[in-house]
């Protein structure tokens, strides 16, 4: 079971692709209902806590249910 932070569309737009260190950036994923989730490792949390993005650590958390896997092999 994966637990992640839930983001509104506005919050997603603020953080997606933003760098919180020189070599690390936020990547959010949508769950089966299209709700945006952000997953941070413990190391990420320690780093993010010292940045302007610390507010993401206060976002509500919930269980992530992934959407159906994409096709493989890819279809034309």
């Amino acid at each position, binding site marked *: 079971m*994966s637990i992640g932070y839930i983001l509104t569309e506005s919050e997603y737009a603020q953080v997606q692709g933003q760098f919180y260190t020189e*070599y*690390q950036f936020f*990547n959010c994923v949508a769950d089966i209902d299209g709700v945006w989730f*952000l*997953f941070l*490792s413990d190391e990420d949390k320690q780093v993010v806590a010292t940045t302007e993005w610390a507010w993401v650590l206060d976002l509500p958390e919930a269980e992530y249910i992934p959407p159906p*896997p994409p096709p493989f092999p890819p279809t*034309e």
Partner: protein
Amino acid sequence: MFGVGVGVRVGGRTAVGGGGYDADAQAFFDRVTAAGGTLTTTEKNATNQLVLDMKSAGIWTPMKAIYPMVGASAAACAQNLKSSSFTGTFTSGWTFASTGVTPNGTSAFFDSNLSTNTLTNNSTHISYYSRTNNAGATMSELSGGNGSTLYLQMLVYRVAGNYNGDQYVTPTNRIDAAIANSQGFFVDSRTNSTTHKAWKSNSLIGTDTNAQLLNISSINFNMYAGARNNNGTADLFSNRQCAFASIGDGLTDTQASNFYTAVQTFQTTLSRNV
């Protein structure tokens, strides 16, 4: 630059700590330091020996990007050992350790910033050292592709217990080989339009001789580690720990074997070999 250090016998050669490193190894160490990362003396000696072994075996030149995943930080692991080009970036969701880097299998990937359009058509290899033995959903370990016909990618252990390596027309030029588990050093190489091979820890696991008719350098997608780059969107997220990855020109049978020996020596020195 030479200095006084403690010699460590590795792979039949002596790497010297505290200075006297190969110039390319030293340049990598300097990049790690400049990025804010740190390496232990053991990591430096192992990396230096890796460079020496690859050069001695003639497998340094074919490399475009080498990610030894040492230093237990994003800053260190993002650096390309081969050159100052193709410095990578990590998304959120990775764990960094002395044993390698581990994606979360949900949202994490590594962008090498090396695009398929910089590769040489009909001469390409990719490699991934997986320290994780697991099975589960379809996961991609290294990938770049256009979402339809053209991919350079490897999935070290699909749901059915198969290795999948695509170079380049999917699925015509796919190696689909039954393997026992997802641990080991996986190398997938194309050396001409009809020669495509894959190895798992120095054992040949599959050969594809179907003629490939498309040009991998005609598409422009960065190679991702830890997920599939599916036409610019990451999916098929992996949770297998990576202790080494590379992208470059195709490798012959002999080069692939020597590559395994060099990388396995490197991992053994770091006490993280599988």
